[in-house]
């Protein structure tokens, strides 16, 4: 299929992908640095073309619950926000996971804690992959490193969300949201007809025909024994994701003695650091994580047997590094480097950290 070239911001690519992927509804609330998502949708007016609903809610609490409503009715619905707004959404996210609803949530992360800064950050890793809301649950978490991936992961997100009936988060950051790059877009995928919806999401509460029982969407079970069974089912689903849905990219790893582990913006910076390192004769590669949950435990375990050390590069005080250490099981040194609070590390700093903390260390 012919692909059309555009130049777009990451945030706009999310909106463009929503329209082109047959999204039924977007509900959001403005917050920097992701407001272009809703702005682009409002300019495009998809309700006049594809019939997609776009609504500015009164808060992130409300927008995530609108997503919950749309998802419960079997629709492809999404929202986007940035860190403080995503914190407000935690209630809705755990309800989505508990009620097993497919939905897409984009977090264009900014520096925290609190109101923090509007500059890029990766300090919401724990919140995204360790829960954030209450209860035992997981979201499928994708980490785009380019505008093209912002676009592509919306399509992938729907696939996973409906396959597993589970919320999917695209964990981006202010840099990927704001940068404009080349983007190849494909043709429009039509929204589901009601017939398709009823076939693809037979569990949905969208009106009970006479020939079936009423559908109930809820995350409540007052009977603890049943609730435990429900939890078993959720856990089995998450293990299946770990088995089947891990995505990563190994760059310059074939001969690598050292490995950067990074995702999103940090992965791009690490890639530049590889170039600088190799110019100095340091054999360094990059394991770029694409899914943060499921985490590529096996791959990191394998690398930990081969390399002299790993440097987890992330714009946080050290979050992903914990998972890297768990997977490496002390077979090789694993250290952390990252700037935070909205500061982005430079490739030189990253390489220096590798030399200081791993090679010399």
């Amino acid at each position: 299929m012919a692909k059309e070239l555009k130049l777009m911001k990451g945030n706009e690519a999310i909106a463009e992908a929503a329209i082109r992927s047959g999204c039924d509804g977007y509900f959001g609330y403005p917050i920097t640095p992701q407001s272009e998502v809703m702005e682009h949708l409002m300019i495009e007016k998809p309700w006049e073309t594809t019939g997609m609903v776009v609504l500015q809610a009164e808060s992130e609490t409300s927008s995530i619950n609108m997503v919950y409503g749309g998802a419960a009715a079997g629709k492809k619905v999404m929202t986007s926000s940035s860190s403080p707004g995503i914190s407000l959404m935690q209630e809705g996210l755990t309800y989505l996971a508990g009620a097993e609803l497919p939905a897409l949530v984009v977090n264009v992360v900014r520096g925290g804690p609190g109101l923090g800064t509007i500059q890029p950050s990766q300090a919401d890793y724990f919140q995204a992959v360790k829960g954030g809301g209450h209860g035992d649950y997981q979201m499928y978490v994708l980490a785009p490193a380019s505008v093209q991936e912002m676009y592509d992961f919306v399509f992938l997100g729907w696939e996973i969300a409906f396959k597993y009936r589970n919320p999917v988060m695209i964990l981006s950051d202010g840099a990927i949201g704001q940068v404009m790059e080349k983007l190849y877009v494909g043709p429009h995928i039509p929204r589901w007809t009601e017939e398709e919806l009823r076939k693809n999401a037979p569990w949905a509460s969208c009106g009970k025909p006479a020939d079936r029982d009423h559908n109930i969407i809820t995350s409540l079970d007052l009977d603890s024994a049943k609730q435990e069974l429900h939890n078993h089912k959720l856990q089995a689903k998450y293990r299946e994701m770990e088995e089947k849905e891990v995505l990563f990219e190994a760059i310059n790893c074939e001969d690598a003695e050292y490995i950067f582990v990074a995702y999103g913006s940090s992965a791009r910076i690490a890639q530049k650091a590889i170039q600088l390192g190799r110019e100095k004769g340091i054999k360094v590669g990059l394991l770029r994580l694409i899914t943060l949950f499921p985490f590529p435990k096996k791959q990191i375990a394998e690398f930990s047997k081969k390399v002299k050390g790993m440097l987890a590069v992330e714009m946080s005080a050290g979050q992903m590094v914990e998972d890297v250490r768990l997977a490496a099981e002390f077979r090789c040194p694993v250290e952390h480097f990252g700037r935070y609070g909205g500061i982005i590390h430079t490739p030189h700093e990253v390489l220096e950290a590798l030399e200081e903390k791993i090679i010399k260390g």
Partner: protein
Amino acid sequence: MFNPDIIKPENLVYEKTNVLTDAIMHYCPGCGHGTTHRIVAEVIEEMGIQDKAICIAPVGCSVLAYNYFNVDAIGAAHGRAPAIATAVQRMFPDRHTFTYQGDGDLAAIGTAETIHACNRGENIVIIFINNGIYGMTGGQMAPTTLLGMKTATSPYGRTVELNGYPLQITELLAELPGTYYITRQSVHTAAAVRKTKKAIRQAFENQKNKKGTSLVEVVSNCNSGWKMTPVEANKWMVENMFVKYPIGDIKVDGEKVKK
């Protein structure tokens, strides 16, 4: 024991609507929820909209409403039902999405969702049960608890100094241009039930005609929470609740009713 000689169509005087399931309700005897459920279900049956009705259940005593209404249903997080109904109704404009909420759900934790759904004039029906207390969690103070009323969290009676005033949210919502029909009813007598059913019918008819938000408040008792017998509770409700929350239409056809 059933007597087959009596169970004959010609002897039938009342039949439970198919829009209620056969599940046994968990509500306390004398509570208004059961009656309100029944008349909502009857209206859905009479209008022939069972296949189009989608119930958004709250958190509160009626958290399990989805087990009783034989329609597709969605259980909401506490207070968020109007946001959920907003999305469902916007994506399925020919459906009859309705929320069923208590006073804590609608007028405390869900105030923002309630006000903004009403202000946008979402084409939804809101059934609002006001009994001035949190029943499910054990009788704590609600935003609509009357001054002086004793609850688990106002054990010496609600005071203005400590808790502020009872919230007349229904009157407040009537001020918003998005609301089309706002009425306050009750279900403590047969006559009141008939009037409430008429009001609920009106709300769903408005929705069918895409008029915007309709809200039916049902002032109810909570005999368990109020620690009274059902009969005493109804008497107390008429003498006290109806003073602060007077029965009658507040807004009809988008116009506020002149007192």
